[in-house]
């Protein structure tokens, strides 16, 4: 079931196409619940633009007041995001994606392509790289950042080739004693004809199995959406961390709503019921860590978010390195015990 649904485009300057890091005014994409924020920030921006044209005008005081109002509102909005809002934030197009993390946190990244069977899957990035000088294998779903790259990467929805490439890379890591780091960000496995014909289910099952077979450390970080089996296939790690506003679920709230409520519009209720937030998953013992995001989410300060993920990976790597050369028994015990306690426990 695809997680789907795009946030609303920038409303302070409708029609202006978004580009990452652009200096020309609007670079923000606002979510629906951020509309009031967009208005205030838009007003402040307008005032400053006016002052730039007319030097006699002194608007700074007013603009600063608006900035403060916006900051307060942002803090208020993000203080307690409900699960459906978290879904929207997790899917925000401006959030740093796998590619950004690899560029920011790894050196000497050397992509390794193909499943040696059928094709290379552009929805799954992977290869050798160094993390703080340590050689590792890094694997992740890449969603793309604009229409063209999104189509190229199939919106981060992997086909069997993607899982089989990951299996191959995990094997490589295991044989050479390299830790594996996986970055999870997928609406789910691609529901396509060819994907099914080439054994989507089997590929996912084998990838999950591979996660449970490699002796080397396996660290998984959910950086956006952890969509169902497509996520599990890479996220069955020794340690699983989630960004504060990321989600991880058996089904998308829309899909769940249309099945159980017979109404896809009940996604808010479904998001609530599914317990898909990092905070709930930590309580359930499904994940090990939550990585705090900058105020307003990773999309507002990509560098800070990526740095936080980097420090967490470093900590987890150190922790796992001390555990000796074979992490399989402990990893299996961990997954065997999964779900033994409910939320109440």
């Amino acid at each position, binding site marked *: 079931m695809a997680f789907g649904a795009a946030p609303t485009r920038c409303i302070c300057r409708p029609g202006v196409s978004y580009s990452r890091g652009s200096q020309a005014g609007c670079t923000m994409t606002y979510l629906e619940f951020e509309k009031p924020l967009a208005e205030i920030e838009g007003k402040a921006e307008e005032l400053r633009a006016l002052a730039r044209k007319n030097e006699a005008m002194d608007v700074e005081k007013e603009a600063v007041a608006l900035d403060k109002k916006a900051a307060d509102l942002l803090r208020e909005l993000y203080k307690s995001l409900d699960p459906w809002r978290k879904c929207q934030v997790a899917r925000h197009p401006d959030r740093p994606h796998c590619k950004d993390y690899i560029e920011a946190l790894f050196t000497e990244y050397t992509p390794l392509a193909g499943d040696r069977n059928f094709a290379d899957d552009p929805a799954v990035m992977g290869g050798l790289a160094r993390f703080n000088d340590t050689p590792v294998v890094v694997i992740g779903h890449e969603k793309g950042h604009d229409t063209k790259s999104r189509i190229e990467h199939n919106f981060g929805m992997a086909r069997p080739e993607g899982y089989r490439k990951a299996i191959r890379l995990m094997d490589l890591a295991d044989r050479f004693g390299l830790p594996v780091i996986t970055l999870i960000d997928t609406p789910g496995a691609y529901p396509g004809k060819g994907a099914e014909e080439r*054994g989507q*289910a089997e590929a996912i099952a084998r990838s999950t199995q591979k996660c449970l077979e490699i002796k080397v450390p396996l660290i998984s970080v959910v950086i956006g959406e952890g969509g169902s089996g497509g996520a599990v296939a890479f996220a069955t790690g020794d340690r699983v961390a989630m960004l504060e506003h990321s989600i991880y679920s*058996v089904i998308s709230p829309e899909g769940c709503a249309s099945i159980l409520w017979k109404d896809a519009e009940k996604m808010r209720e479904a998001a609530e019921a599914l317990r898909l937030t990092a905070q709930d998953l930590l309580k359930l013992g499904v994940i090990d860590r939550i990585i705090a995001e900058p105020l307003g989410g990773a999309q507002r300060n990509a560098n800070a978010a990526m740095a936080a993920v980097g420090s967490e990976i470093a900590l987890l790597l150190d922790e796992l390195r001390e555990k000796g050369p074979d992490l399989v028994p402990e990893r299996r015990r961990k997954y065997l015990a999964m779900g033994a306690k*409910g939320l109440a426990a």
Partner: protein
Amino acid sequence: MNWISNYVRPKINSLFSRREVPENLWTKCPECGTMLFHRELSENLNVCTSCEHHMAITPRERFAALFDGGVFVEVPVPDPVIDPLAFRDQKKYPDRLKAAQKAAGEKEAMLVADGEVGRTPIIAAAQDFSFMAGSMGMYVGNAIVAAAERAVMLRRPLVLFAAAGGARMQEGILSLMQMPRTTVAVQMLNEAGLPYIVVLTHPTTGGVTASYAMLGDVQIAEPNALICFAGPRVIEQTIREKLPEGFQRAEYLLDHGMLDRVTHRKKLRDEIISILRMLMRQPQAIVADLPAPSR
């Protein structure tokens, strides 16, 4: 699916005792429309005598036909936390569970048994599609882990009959976590050198297919069973085209290299005995020596 609701129930039946009722019931084949005597159908393992359509079969019926003399012992499955997420959609999950238990007459969606097949001791597990679409939650996970642990302890093979609509949504992420969890169970069998045979029955879909149901040493399917990860409707909505005839059915998967065999339900028992004995390097079973199945 719900063939049992299609039966014709003459008023007069209510005069007879429950035990006599089945002989007078008819079941309409959902495939060819033939009216079949309930008893005749059940003797034929719920396979239509006219068109060979394989209808649903409960784990108990399956085991009665599978094990020598229909004799098996239920393997206890540890109880999970009920409703671990306090899940509520239009109904509360515990209410849905109770309704399913009442309708299916079973505690949950999987039954595990210990017994002999052709004098070959095995552990068998069967998923019950009539129980919340056989969906995989904590209980099904517990059942598979219990089955694997018992198989390893007694050094026996495990035969698993899969049937499921996928993961149990009402258990959210914990149902998803049954994918790695049951994979560990399969690995326990693999490492103990014990055969694990999967029989895929109609329908087996979603997270179940993407975990224990696709990891068998030998993968057998019943004819025409729907076996997939994403269902045909989801795919049609995504790619906006009609899917070919027979897409995601057992024979289609066999053609695409995704299965070892497609086997008629009535031939399954002999085939399972034969494969298991070869994998366990045991002498060939002498058919004449075998006790007849119960029906």
